[in-house]
């Protein structure tokens, strides 16, 4: 009885600017990629899906959970990797940051810390245990955010530009880990090659769906359009 993500005629205005008007969308696929230009509304969309932004009208349900109202339910259902790690990190210490979400899911403080440590070790970063998050490099902070989200194992995980600050090997390793996840995944990215083998690609343009289909249908058209644009901008 899986319902997936169900967005029902949403309208969203942020600081006076309209981002979505009467926008509807159903997502059921296991691997979904979202592409589109800067300011198209990609981050706004996945913030809506994770219940962080309240639309002026309309409704978002994920696996039947009203993500805006039922926060405890949303916790098990959707997880979000923020585009800017500085906006996601809450705690000064690396271990606390990972443990917090686990505690929120009902683990005791000690259990959560133990799990956080094993997550660090699993990603080959056992030595980060005592480090402070603000003294990590930008890419290291993004990895910390990724670990914190993956540790919580929600049924849907939304990644906003997960590879933007990662170095090549870390990026490739995370890509492989994401591919292997049993959960449903949505990735927002400016790099089409990262979502090549996915089940479905959405191309968002100024708050509307410009194209929606398999990677083979959408990505070549997207690439061509972007290159055209680049040529017209370069002059």
């Amino acid at each position: 009885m899986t319902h997936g993500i169900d967005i029902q005629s949403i309208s969203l205005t942020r600081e006076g600017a309209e981002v979505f008007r009467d926008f509807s969308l159903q997502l059921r696929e296991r691997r979904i990629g979202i592409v589109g230009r800067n300011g198209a509304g990609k981050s706004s969309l996945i913030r809506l899906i994770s219940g962080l932004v309240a639309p002026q009208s309309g409704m978002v349900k994920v696996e039947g959970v009203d993500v805006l109202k039922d926060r405890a339910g949303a916790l098990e259902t959707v997880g979000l990797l923020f585009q800017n790690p500085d906006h996601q990190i809450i705690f000064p210490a690396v271990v606390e940051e990972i443990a917090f979400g686990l505690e929120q899911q009902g683990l005791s403080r000690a259990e959560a810390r133990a799990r956080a440590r094993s997550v660090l070790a699993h990603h080959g970063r056992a030595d980060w245990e005592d480090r402070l998050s603000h003294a990590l490099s930008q890419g290291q902070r993004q990895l910390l955010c990724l670990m914190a989200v993956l540790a919580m194992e929600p049924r849907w995980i939304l990644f906003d530009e997960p590879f933007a600050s990662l170095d090549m090997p870390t990026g490739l390793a995370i890509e492989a880990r994401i591919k292997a996840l049993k959960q449903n995944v949505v990735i927002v990215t400016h790099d089409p090659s990262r979502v090549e083998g996915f089940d479905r690609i959405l191309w968002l343009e100024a708050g509307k769906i410009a194209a929606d289909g398999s990677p083979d249908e959408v990505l070549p058209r997207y690439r061509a359009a972007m290159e055209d644009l680049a040529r017209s901008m370069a002059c």
Partner: protein
Amino acid sequence: MLSLALPKRSWAHKLPASVKFGVLAVLMVGLMQFGTLTGQLIGLALAAGLTLSLGLTASKIALQALRPVLWIVAVIVIWHFWQREFSQGAVFGIRVVAMVGLANFVTLTTPLPEIIALVERLAQPIRHFGLSPRLPALAVGLVLRFIPELRARYAAMTDAWRARSPRRPRTKLVAPLAFSLLDDADHLAEALRARGGIAPLPTRRDQHGT
């Protein structure tokens, strides 16, 4: 971190935080009630004895923490003596030093996580109002997080300024700093929401699985 702390654990660290804070509260009220010099002297001796029992280094740290209070007290005591109110001056001076000394003793020997855990336990009754008892503890934790963050923000912003200006920012950063703090509050609110927010906790991890 900003809070008072000792480099090493002491015997007093082993006492439960609730006991230490409970006894401290009783002592405070007691010291205020007894106007006699002997009462205050007993309080002072207790504070001094407890502090010394932590060792020499710890006593030095405690004395440092006492410094800002000491000289205010000195001024008032001198004023009383000037007015020839000797007993009143002495009672006042000894009382303040004893109280602050005792309070510092408790703070020095109770690590922050234990203080926060205590807050959490004391806050259990707010469950009845549909609020998570973790809320006050979380609030305390967040304030303590924001304090260094405020300085870091200031430092980051002066960097951004210096990268494009040879002059000192002076007061020009006050407004941008205020905005960046408010934005921080927004981002932090979203980050908290993204991880379940401040709704009461689920009791078991698999409660919502289907």
